[in-house]
């Protein structure tokens, strides 16, 4: 009513409060939250349709609605929208942290149960359903060998491929390679497993295995290599592109041929970044279950020869123990999962720290 009076005046009277936009007092948000929770509790328990979880969920919805209404009445629509989105973004964070924290907590609490020396020194050979013993030694050996062989195959291939894309490749062909490396990043691990199954286990290996399909750790390494290749190519490619051009020009000006420039100047400069990419790829490959399940077969005994007979891996061990009917199996599965996560996280953290020290990174 007062606005209609002031609107046709040339200048409204200078009220000290009109300089600032009207704002909700600081206690509004907690007050709305308490009111929303109380209302939600009244509705839920009054109608008898659920427990405390529903109260919190309904309370959150009512809080958002109430906050929007209050801010809309006092501060205007734009501010109300701002407040609501801010609350939504904060709640998205809380919502996601709960399950992720639960995963981490369960991993440590349940994984500690079988975390003893015996676990790392024995295999599952001759371990029956009623034996509480048994360990993952054979699986750890398998993981290390398979990932090691895969790294040996992929690193030279991936780095050479990246060198071609960055230094030599021109035109459509190089673009096609780049494009398909990107596409290859998205190939599911189980498909690479099936590929190695069809190519190596069922077609190639019977030639020198008396016609029988040869499941082996090496086959798993091949599948992991196919998985790691695009990751390594992409990270190496990015690192090579970051090498300053004057470095190359300086080498060319001194009469150094291009291949020597690449090997002696470009690669050493980009080395820390390349190592980071390789370590991240290794960490990802170490956690893969599906390809190992298909082509290494898994096994209970220690098999240190990756070229013959079944081999297990940590990830596969977790999967097999989780499906095992023995009541001691879940504890073994959790401890193996903890071991696997520790291995992967050590690699990842080391890679990230290395990346942080790298002067070339963005």
């Amino acid at each position, binding site marked *: 009513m007062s606005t209609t009076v002031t609107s046709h005046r040339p200048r409204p009277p200078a009220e000290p409060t009109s300089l600032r936009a009207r704002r909700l007092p600081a206690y509004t948000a907690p007050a709305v939250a308490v009111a929303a929770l109380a209302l939600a509790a009244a509705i839920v328990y009054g109608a008898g349709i659920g427990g405390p979880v529903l109260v919190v969920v309904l309370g959150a919805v009512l809080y958002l609605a109430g906050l929007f209404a209050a801010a809309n009445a006092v501060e205007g629509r734009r501010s109300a929208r701002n407040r609501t989105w801010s609350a939504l973004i904060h709640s*998205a*964070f809380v919502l996601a942290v709960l399950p992720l924290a639960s995963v981490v907590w369960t991993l440590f609490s349940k994984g500690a149960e079988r975390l003893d020396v015996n676990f790392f020194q024995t295999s599952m050979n001759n371990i029956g359903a009623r034996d509480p013993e048994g360990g993952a030694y054979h699986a750890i050996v398998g993981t290390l060998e398979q990932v090691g062989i895969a790294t040996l195959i992929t690193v030279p291939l991936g780095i050479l491929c990246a060198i071609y894309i960055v230094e030599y490749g021109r035109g459509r062909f190089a673009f096609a390679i780049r494009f398909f490396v990107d596409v290859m990043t998205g190939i599911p691990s189980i498909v690479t497993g099936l590929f190695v199954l069809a190519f190596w286990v069922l077609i190639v290996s019977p030639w020198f295995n008396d016609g029988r399909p040869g499941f082996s750790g090496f086959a798993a390494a091949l599948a992991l290599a196919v998985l790691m290749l695009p990751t390594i190519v992409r990270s190496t490619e990015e690192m090579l592109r970051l090498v300053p051009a004057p470095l190359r020009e300086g080498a060319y000006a001194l009469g150094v*041929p291009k291949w020597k420039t690449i090997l002696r100047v470009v690669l050493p400069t980009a080395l820390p970044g390349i190592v980071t990419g390789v370590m991240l790829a290794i960490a990802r490959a170490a956690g893969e279950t599906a390809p190992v399940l298909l082509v290494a077969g898994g096994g209970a005994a220690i098999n240190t020869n990756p070229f013959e007979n079944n081999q297990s891996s940590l990830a596969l061990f977790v999967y097999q123990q989780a499906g095992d009917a023995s009541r001691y199996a879940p504890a073994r599965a959790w401890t193996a999962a903890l071991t696997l996560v520790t291995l992967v996280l050590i690699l990842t953290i080391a890679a990230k720290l290395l990346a942080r020290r790298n002067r070339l990174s963005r």
Partner: protein
Amino acid sequence: MGETPHRSADAGTGGTRVTESHEWPAGASARVAEAPVSTRTPGGTGLGGGGALPRSRKFGAERAFRGLTLAAGTAVLVIIAAIAVFLVAKATPALRANTENFWTFEGWFPNDAEPKFGIGALAFGTVLTAALALLVAVPIALGIALYLSHYAPRRLGTTLGFLIDLLAAVPSVVFGLWGREVFLKPVQDLSVWLNKYFSWIPLFGGDGPFGKSILLGSLVLAIMVLPIITSLSREVFLQTPTANEEAALALGATQWETIRTAVLPYGRPGIIAAVMLGLGRALGETIALAMTLGITFGISFNLIENGGNSIAANIANTFGEANETGRGALIASGLVLFAITLIVNITARVIIYRRREFTESAA
């Protein structure tokens, strides 16, 4: 070729020394100087023109090295082609032996004397779980990414971002184990509750048992792809030019309006890339789904009853007792999965490459 890594490692000290002495002009002119280098060496010899310089030899180290890198580059194309060729080669006999329609039959009995198997139900389950997972994960992941990049205090944001990056590296088998042993109970309670009050919606109908359902599978999948999408989109959001944000703020935009007008449009290609990567992961995820779905064959939109299946989970579950035809049938289903992910990936890449011409963000 065996000694090349060794050699480059030896040269390491020399190489880094060069970097240090050239550091200040290097960073500034890297982008500008890139083009001349590429055009200066059309013959690939690395030597400039000039008659006094040695001519490129036909079979020298330069040619050899160039050929080696070319071979490595070609290997990628060969591998992709080989994947398709070998899968087709092994799948064809099984598909010939199939006595039912591969696309429409609902069931998987490839090991019988008269093999019967169909991909329909599996492909449906794959797409349904992946779509549900993304529906849940993408809004939440973008919310967290915005929180970490724009709302949280800088220190907290960096630390939590690092933790999220680490969670993205946790193997899927761990999430599967967690989903089966810990998450099953709350989802079961939720399913019973949904069934009690919302059974009139076909999605939540049925009369149990509940628990190892599509709901559980896709929620575990969502939790799994959450860190991946978050860490990628957070990086993109952090790259938003400060000038754009400050301009929006200077015009009087609220924080949300700044994000909507400056941050989100800038990061759109990156977000699309992150979501597509998440979709690729969700479509191909094997072990987590094999451990959480209650394997059935049938096309049903019921989310909460025990059941559901996916191509990848079916491969992991039935591979153990598969015979010759059974393996062929699984390889055929893998071929379908390969085709689905290939289409998704190529679409995503085309979108990103096309967008990159307009906005110069690295996706």
